[in-house]
């Protein structure tokens, strides 16, 4: 019995270390890749390994929602926009340790150290979950019951936030379309066969400018 328990523990550790390593490595990949398409693909890997980490603390519904909402919906939207914009001339790495680069690295390191220090000071020594949880912890029914009883206001406010964001996205898109139409009409009224025509001409304009 003890041997089986320790074997399960070792297995959990192995899976955890693999998922955490994949998570951090793909996060570094998102930041360092030059092509946004590769960055988005690395972020999908990051979200998948995070879902594995969620499963290891028995947050099943959050892991499923992570895969469906993030890796499914949000990343597909990202990839659509990256494909729509096309291969941009990516401004390369700043080239050596310039002052903004150095400042950015220092600020990020300061944020990281601040988190570590605050957690270690406030909660050091008390962070171990030794007890076992009951079987319903993290299950969809449990989360749904919490949403509709204790956290009903947060649930409703979330729906309003999503509605407002959808309306905002539509307004931004319509506004851009109107701007494009008004910008493209006066110089060449007859020569505008499709809305995608100004977009085609854009690289040559930028190359000449």
């Amino acid at each position: 019995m003890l041997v089986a328990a320790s074997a399960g523990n070792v297995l959990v550790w192995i899976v955890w270390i693999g998922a955490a390593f994949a998570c951090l490595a793909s996060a570094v990949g998102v930041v360092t890749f030059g092509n946004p398409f590769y960055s988005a693909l690395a972020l999908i890997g990051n979200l998948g390994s995070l879902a594995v980490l969620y499963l290891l603390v028995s947050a099943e519904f959050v892991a499923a929602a992570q895969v469906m909402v993030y890796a499914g919906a949000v990343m597909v939207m990202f990839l659509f926009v990256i494909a729509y914009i096309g291969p941009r001339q990516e401004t390369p790495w700043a080239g050596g340790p310039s002052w903004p680069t150095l400042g950015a690295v220092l600020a990020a390191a300061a944020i990281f150290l601040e988190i570590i220090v605050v957690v270690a000071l406030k909660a050091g020594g008390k962070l171990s979950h030794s007890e076992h949880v009951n079987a319903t912890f993290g299950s969809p029914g449990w989360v749904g019951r919490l949403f509709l009883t204790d956290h009903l206001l947060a649930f409703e406010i979330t729906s309003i936030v999503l509605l407002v964001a959808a309306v905002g996205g539509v307004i931004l898109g319509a506004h851009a379309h109107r701007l494009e139409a008004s910008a493209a009409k006066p110089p060449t009224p007859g020569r505008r066969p499709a809305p995608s025509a100004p977009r085609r001409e854009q690289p040559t304009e930028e190359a000449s400018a």
Partner: protein
Amino acid sequence: MLGPGVAWYLGVAAFLFGIGALGVLLRRNVLIVLLSLEIMLNGANLALIGFSRHAHNGAGQIFALAVMAVAAAEVCVGLGLVVAIHRRNLDLDVDKLSELRG
């Protein structure tokens, strides 16, 4: 105890948040800045889930789901802005999009 404690989760979450902050501060492509922002949100989510397991409390998971919804809303508006910028033939560089600088 089965598997790593919540302190390990907090370490990974802090690393994720730091890497995301580095990307937001360092990169100049708007799309990669948005992707790094997602990494920061996911670092916060991981800490929330770890604390939820630590405290046997469901509020952390509810909060994580709310963060996911807010991230989806942010991506919707952010990508709408990116498409609008692209259609006005502006450069997708956060250093060059400085018309609102005071």
